[in-house]
């Protein structure tokens, strides 16, 4: 199968602290890939390395065939990213911000306007589109954050805790939209989340990180069978306890 993301022994050290230790996995084109792990496990650092936001200290990674260190801008041109922690510029409107992000991709004005309108419509933000972002609720801001990740119609989407801040309906709609993106447009999605039910609902394959290392990477059902787990919670705890033992 054609691989959209290939990660080989990727590592990152911050001084004496090892944030990511020899992580290897691959994600097929059009796949929705789950990324699980507790806070500080190394998920965010791994995602950041895939976009060239953090420079690896070991190993290598390729996204859509491009090296993440030497072809960073090409990787970003075809990728969408939602960080786990971010803010929106308070003085800009939602529409203005999407136009601004579109300009960073050098999208023509007409294309940018059409895509911004479509995304605002898709996320139900038309009525708030011209209000300053400072007044947006957490859920609305998260929708704008996801919309900005989609403005360039990316081939690869890296989402770090995308459902945080969304209400149950918003979460359901987001998961449906991600399924549609993968199914209809072949977008490769890396979905990092603490909410294991979201990962189970969306992803066929998952990677589990624990203390900077990848402790499992396989199909969800196969992992469950191998560890005698009935639920994702059971599976996650089994993997983590095995590492701790």
């Amino acid at each position, binding site marked *: 199968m054609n691989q959209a993301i290939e990660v080989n022994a990727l590592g990152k050290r911050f001084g004496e602290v090892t944030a990511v230790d020899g992580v290897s996995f691959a994600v097929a084109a059009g796949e929705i890939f789950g990324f699980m792990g507790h806070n500080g496990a190394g998920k965010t650092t791994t995602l950041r390395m895939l976009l060239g*936001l953090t420079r690896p200290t070991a190993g290598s990674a390729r996204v859509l065939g491009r090296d993440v260190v030497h072809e*960073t801008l*090409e990787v*970003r041109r075809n990728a969408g990213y939602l960080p786990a*922690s971010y803010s929106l*510029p308070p*003085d*800009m409107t939602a529409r*203005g911000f999407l136009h601004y992000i579109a300009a960073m991709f050098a999208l023509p*004005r007409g294309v940018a306007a059409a895509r911004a309108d479509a995304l605002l419509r898709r996320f139900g933000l038309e009525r708030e589109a011209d209000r300053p972002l400072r007044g947006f609720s957490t859920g609305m801001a998260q929708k704008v954050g996801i919309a900005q990740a989609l403005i360039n119609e990316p081939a690869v989407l890296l989402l770090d805790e995308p459902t945080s801040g969304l209400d149950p309906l918003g979460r359901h709609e987001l998961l449906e939209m991600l399924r549609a993106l993968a199914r209809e447009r072949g977008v490769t999605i890396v979905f990092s989340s603490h909410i294991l039910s979201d990962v189970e609902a969306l992803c066929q394959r998952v990677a589990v990180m624990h203390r900077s290392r990848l402790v499992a990477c396989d199909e969800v059902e196969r992992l469950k069978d191998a560890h005698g787990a009935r639920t994702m919670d059971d599976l996650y705890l089994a993997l983590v306890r095995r590492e701790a033992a």
Partner: protein
Amino acid sequence: MIRLLWLDYLATLRERKTWLCVAMLAYALVAIPVVLARPPDHVRAAIAAWFGDATPFQIFMYVWIDLTMNKVIAFLPVVIASGVVLRERDTGVLPLLASKPLSIPRYFVVRALSACAVMVTLHVATQLAGAAYFTARVPGFRPGPFLGAMSLHAFAALFATALCAAIAAWVKHRGASALIGFATLGGLVGLSLIGFYQPAWRGITLANPITLGALGLGSLDHLGPAVLGPPMLALAALTALTIAVGAAGVRRMEA
């Protein structure tokens, strides 16, 4: 990049800090003719000592350039540019922006140019409004030489803004960069007219970019391309160099 620059310029124009700057400039515009109508004794004495046989228009231009617009370009560029990229980093916007196909140094260049454009817009708008207002309020006011001298001063404002942005890029802390920017510009402004008071030091003070911006003050009766062109070119080149130095400062910055 041009579209991004334009959108960033519009966004910066709409920010609250820009409206604070507009309010300060509006106050200066309205206040100066009032102050000049009854100048304080120490100002009158200083003017008499430095410009013994100066015309009222020359005195007005000294007051406008040194006491008003030089102070403006020691303060407004700090407000507009000393948080370039740092504010985005500190408020958490940078992680979104840095994941786009634009390196942080290039993004700094866009933000610095946008800040420069906003400063020049405010400066030019103030001079145009001043030319109209002062014609009605200041006896002996000459709009042509006023606009000529102030067009050169706008380049000093451009440089001052680029300098604040570059300081921010290297200092990497918003508060410290604002303080250092203000102190640096304050020093340059404070020394800018020494050549007028002490002709022996004139050559040395030409190394001060703010002095270059005020050179029109010494040639109000024969301002033209030969007088204005060289300092404008020098200030434009210094601005470009300063922005390039600033871009080097953010090369290793992580979002």
